[in-house]
């Protein structure tokens, strides 16, 4: 085919539907062609539906690619968001920072062990008052304490240098952030019952100077009585049927005026009852013994959970 023939063919054929190169950068889905469509076009297939014939599970070609192409992120940059990115501020809890974005927030704590992370979290250095500080991202969807902070809980009683008894420490995800909060002068006593998770916790505690692992049953405070001193804060996150009773048993370690935090999982108390009902029952029980300072339902982040902040009188 000669060049002239080619040109004629191009003229006769319909336009290819590509648009200008500047449009292409924006990515297909959010570009100008989608704008012509009605906002709720019923003929359009939903994202999850099968579009490619054959054995989809064994067709790896499109794995990991979104239907919008790869340029989506570039398009979402806007001057408004750039301004909001500057809102990286410290909040009322010690060593804790919040990054406010358009729709959600990000939590950060000052890393106590710079250069070492344990759960593959995002880390970067930030200049704060002329000091270089390593920030550790706190994924609050994985942590009940974190989601309480993201839901703007009024007070936790945790300050720099306070001693915290952490019941139900598990692999040590949340305890590591608590240890960031209390700093080098504070201390976190991490308690768990299952040997498998304490194995991970042990290795984590070795690298953090203000943490210690203890294997014990939280239901039997007599067993670890000689291992734990008087503490400022108790945090409990164990999925047990008698959570509230165990919580009240451990008040003996709390000093006067200290705070006790309870993350209650309704489903492990009773699956058949409604969560709201269980929260109400727990509240009535707690009010007999302590003063409830704050209460949150952690619903968008943790399903069927609630969070109590209590104060010992």
């Amino acid at each position, binding site marked *: 085919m000669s060049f002239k023939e080619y040109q004629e063919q191009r003229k006769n054929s319909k336009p290819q539907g590509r648009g200008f190169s500047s449009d292409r950068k924006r990515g297909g889905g959010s570009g100008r062609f989608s704008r012509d469509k009605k906002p709720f076009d019923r003929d359009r297939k939903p994202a999850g539906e099968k579009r490619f014939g054959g054995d989809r599970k064994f067709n790896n070609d499109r794995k990991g690619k979104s239907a919008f192409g790869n340029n989506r992120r570039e398009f979402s940059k806007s001057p408004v968001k750039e301004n909001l990115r500057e809102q990286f501020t410290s909040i009322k809890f010690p060593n804790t920072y919040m990054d406010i974005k358009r729709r959600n927030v990000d939590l950060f704590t000052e890393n106590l062990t710079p250069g070492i992370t344990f759960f593959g979290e995002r880390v970067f250095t930030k200049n704060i008052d002329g000091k270089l500080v390593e920030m550790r991202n706190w994924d609050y969807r994985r942590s009940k304490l974190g989601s309480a902070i993201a839901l703007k809980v009024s007070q936790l009683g945790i300050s720099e240098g306070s001693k915290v008894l952490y019941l139900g420490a598990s692999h040590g995800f949340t305890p590591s952030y608590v240890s960031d909060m209390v700093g080098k002068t504070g201390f976190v006593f991490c308690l768990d019952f299952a040997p498998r998770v304490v194995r991970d916790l042990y290795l984590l505690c070795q690298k953090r100077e203000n943490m210690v*692992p203890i294997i014990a049953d939280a239901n039997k405070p007599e067993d670890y*009585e000689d291992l734990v001193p008087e503490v400022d804060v108790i945090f409990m996150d164990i999925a047990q049927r008698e959570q509230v009773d165990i919580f009240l048993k451990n008040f003996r370690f709390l000093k006067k005026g200290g705070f006790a935090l309870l993350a209650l999982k309704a489903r492990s108390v009773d699956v058949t009852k409604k969560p709201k009902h269980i929260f109400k029952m727990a509240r009535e029980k707690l009010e007999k013994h302590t003063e409830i300072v704050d209460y949150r339902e952690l619903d968008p982040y943790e399903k069927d959970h609630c969070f109590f902040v209590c104060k010992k009188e």
Partner: protein
Amino acid sequence: MLKNFDANREEYRKKCFQLTAEKLRVSVNQDNFLVQAISEINEIDKLVNMLSRRLNEHAGLYLPELYGAINDNKTFARLISSKTKKELMSDLKLEKTIGAELEKKNVEPIVALAKQIVSLFDLRDKTEEYLESILVKYMPNVKHILGTMISAKLMLIAGSLKHLAIFPASTIQMLGAEVALFRHLKTGAKCPKYGFLITHPLVANAKPKDKGRYARMLAAKVSIAAKVDYFKGEFIGDKLLEQLEKKLK
């Protein structure tokens, strides 16, 4: 309550780590080996099924007739890894195939995959032997009634023999049917009749009407056997099974 904590922090830390390490070391027992072995078998099964499907697709390029003749993944992989195309054709009594003629370099990856699958099957057999050797010593009564795989699966959910011994018979009957059971409790849907016990030959070969009853009786015997095993009693597995078979006839 611990006193003078602030004065000797370092000492306290050392002591705590020592205590915890000791408890961790002691905590490893037969239950852990059992749970690891059965989980390993489950995962190998998944892996082998996936890879066998891929091997079928890949080997179908040069000999599609083989898969129709052999419907067993294990022998299929063994044949492809050990024999050439000509030998296989003479075994199947074929003169011509609809498969393509492939060069040697394109056949090699197929054979390599088949060899891997065969070795995975061997690993599975070895693990099952290991599992059986533990079960015979650790819980002989339950193993005699249920067989290796079902009793191991029950252990996987119960977590330890202690828990299995504490469970009432009705709980053992439901092990493996957690989703259906909690759906029943939450929404009032039909209650499940059996979990893993459905794979036991006594229950599986029963009439559909009788399956629930048989599973209940079997669970009762398993509950007794687990209690005997946990408290290190005598071997009564054969008696229990005999009683059960008599009743069911």
